[in-house]
């Protein structure tokens, strides 16, 4: 057999940050027209490996060859020029530029002008529209300023951008973390088409079902080392998970707790012009209520409205812990016993430059004071308790949160609210970007919390999560409750309750 050089061949890649090794001797190969899934738990080194490939990071050891030719991209621009394109894990857009500009800024179409070659805005707009149409998201207007789009829409634009140029290798780092299944399906269609055009795709994801649907081969990293590769057709979830984690996960969701206590939260006729319409529900102590909805359904605002993050609420009646409660501000919400974990971890959750200890202590700082001053030892012991309690993997309470992997940051955000006096915990998208192992841990902890008497409200666009986790589930669509389910509802049932077109857009 004539063995042509593989499209991508990375060999012996090594990298450490500040003396701590993150990748050691990693090999990674992709053939032309092949989709390779790169798996590994949070912090395994997947993103780092791809950033090394595209020249964002330097490397300490190893070689890289593309189509048999040794390459060494000094900067991403060199990688782009060689047809190696990265769709990074974190949303990375120019918020004040239009959709079309975001798609084409790296490769602007020009036209002859009187004096000089100017940017061909019309062509750019037209081609943007074509690309978005192809993706199935024709409703996104190329002239919209990027920051006005939802996170999911921005993600779609980023994907369009990655597709705009002529790529030989396309790396997608968790492209669907913020998307719904339907949206993901549209992305898969594109990947298959690229494959047919002999483009190679590296696909990073924590959703095993996706990986099994789209990939030809699966490469697993563990603690910065190769932990096996599998032909997708010849393996199964359990083997892959075993390679990733060293053990199997079993059932992701814990059994529902038995005894439910008294009613903690009751919401009646809650409305928010244009966003929420006559919402009513209640949660009891010990209960997890899941709320499922697609983008634009109202799940983005429901939790915030109750917490007080949207300011004083006028319409509707809310009772909290048996008392009348009017949302006013986060400060007031917190004082009334509500904890809130926001969806956008990086933007709205972590204080990047502070340590794990500080991030955990911040929300109830007054509880760690001795006299006038904060007691560091009290903070430390509290932080340690939850580092152990939630299995947060960190070098210690003094590590800066920004250097933790995503899943562990998420656990810190939850740990903040685990103090006496919090009765209701509201979580938006609690496991976005979190690996299976960690996801199971988080679900387990949420169940523990409920068993200890918390009421938990989970707002998620992950239908499996809502179906699996919730004691009861609500489905929202266009600001209204369109379905109420008890335990045991299937994802398909929840999905069916929404009438929404899979391509989301506000009317």
């Amino acid at each position, binding site marked *: 057999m004539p063995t042509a050089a593989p499209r991508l061949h990375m060999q012996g890649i090594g990298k450490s940050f500040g003396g701590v090794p993150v990748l050691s001797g990693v090999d990674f190969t992709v053939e032309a027209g092949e989709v390779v899934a790169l798996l590994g738990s949070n912090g395994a080194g997947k993103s780092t490996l791809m950033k090394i490939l595209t020249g964002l990071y330097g490397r300490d050891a190893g070689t890289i060859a593309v189509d048999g030719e040794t390459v060494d991209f000094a900067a991403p621009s060199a990688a*782009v020029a060689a047809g190696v394109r990265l769709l990074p894990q974190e949303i*990375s857009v120019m*918020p004040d*530029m239009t959709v079309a500009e975001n798609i084409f800024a*790296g490769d602007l179409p020009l036209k002859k002008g009187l004096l000089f070659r100017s*940017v061909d805005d019309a062509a750019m707009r037209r081609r943007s529209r074509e690309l978005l149409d192809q993706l199935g998201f024709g409703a996104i207007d190329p002239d919209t300023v990027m920051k006005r789009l939802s996170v999911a829409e921005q993600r779609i634009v980023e994907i369009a951008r990655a597709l705009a140029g002529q790529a030989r290798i396309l790396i997608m780092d968790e492209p669907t973390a913020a998307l719904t299944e339907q949206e993901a399906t549209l992305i898969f269609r594109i990947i298959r088409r690229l494959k047919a055009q002999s483009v190679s795709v590296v696909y990073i994801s924590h959703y095993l079902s996706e990986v099994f649907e789209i990939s030809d081969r699966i490469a697993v990293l563990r603690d910065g080392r190769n932990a096996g590769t599998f032909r997708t057709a010849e393996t199964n979830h359990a083997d892959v998970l075993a390679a990733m984690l060293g053990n199997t996960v079993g059932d992701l969701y814990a059994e529902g707790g038995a005894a439910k206590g008294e009613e903690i939260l009751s919401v009646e006729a809650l409305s928010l012009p244009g966003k929420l319409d006559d919402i009513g529900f209640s949660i009891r102590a010990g209960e997890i209520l899941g709320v499922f909805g697609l983008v634009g359904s109202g799940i983005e605002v429901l939790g915030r409205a109750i917490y007080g993050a949207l300011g004083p609420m006028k319409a509707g009646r809310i009772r909290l812990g048996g008392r009348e409660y009017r949302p006013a501000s986060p400060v007031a919400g917190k004082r009334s016993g509500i904890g809130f974990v926001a969806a956008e971890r990086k933007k709205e959750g972590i204080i990047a430059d502070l340590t794990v200890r500080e991030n955990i202590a911040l929300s109830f700082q007054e509880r760690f004071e001795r006299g006038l001053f904060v007691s560091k030892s009290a903070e430390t012991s509290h932080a340690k308790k939850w580092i152990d309690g939630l299995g947060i993997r960190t070098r210690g309470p003094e590590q800066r949160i920004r250097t933790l992997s995503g899943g562990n940051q998420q656990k810190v955000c939850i740990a903040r609210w685990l103090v006496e006096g919090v009765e209701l915990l509201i979580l938006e998208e609690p496991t976005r970007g979190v690996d299976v192992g960690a996801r199971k841990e988080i679900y387990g902890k949420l169940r523990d919390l409920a068993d200890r008497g918390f009421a938990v409200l989970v707002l998620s666009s992950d239908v499996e999560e809502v179906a699996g986790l919730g004691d009861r589930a609500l489905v929202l669509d266009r600001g209204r409750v369109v379905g109420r389910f008890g335990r045991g509802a299937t994802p398909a049932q929840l999905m069916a309750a929404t009438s929404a077109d899979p391509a989301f857009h506000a009317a």
Partner: protein
Amino acid sequence: MATATPATISATRRRMTSLLGRPWSGVAVLLVFYIGLVVVFSVLSPFFLSVRNMLSIGSNVAFIGLMAATGTPLIIAGGLDLSVAAIAGLTGVVISLLHMQGLDIWLAVAVAVFVAAAIGWINGLFTTRLKLNPLIVTLGMMSIVSGLALVMTGGLTRPLMVPGFNVIGQGRVFGVPLPLILMLVTFLGLWLVLTRTRFGRHVYASGGNAEAARLIGIPVERTVVTLYIVSALSGAVAGIVLAAMLGAAAPNSAGQHLLTVIAAIILGGTSLNGGRGSVWGTLLAILILGTLNNGLTLMNVSSFWQDVTRGVVLMLAVSLDQIRSRALGD
């Protein structure tokens, strides 16, 4: 007669909103503010509203305007240049010294412009390649450059009277002062570059999200370095205009206007965080500040009260823009 139904109200509101929401709506607010100022002064002072006076405002603000013009794209791209005014001072000094040594005036100008470009290049390298804080780098550069200008002249103002040269500052074309024309052409050119060319988009992208821009292959460093050089060059041109206008080169001539330059850029709607801004906003801000100075002086308001008024106007102008943003529900 039609009564305003909720539907028509909301349609009107939507139209207004979309009007105000366009990128230039912040500029429109400044334009309204500027026109308001012109009207007020026209009423309050009989000397204010005349072509001659408008032109003299224009020529007074020209050298500040030149520096603010190029400072705008630099700040949009995420940079900052505090040394530009010092470069203006040095340029005049270098020209006058070289000319005194017998060098042809235009050769002297060329050398001075080259020196300025080199300084801009150093600013650019230090901030991009070495990733040093631009505030400290360019503040340091300001100190070095103005110190050198003082050293070179021994602190003295040097006369610089060469008819062909002084025309740059004192000449007129169809009655319009040349410095004003130079400034307007600079703004126009920068506007074209920023809105029409590839480089312009790279400027916005670099400042909007340098990381993202780099990732899609935009040469962020080169873009920013270029802008530092352009900023320094505009400092040189400002220095030339000033020296030509005054018939003398003073080492400290432009230094005190540094804050005005920065203030005009920010007032004009450019964000210090990068990624947003327009040169027309800067131009209007410059005109507002120049008009205020002119109008109050014509009204015989003491310079102390002028300071107070200027502060109030700055605050008013930026509040007005905020009210616009609020109306949009941003």
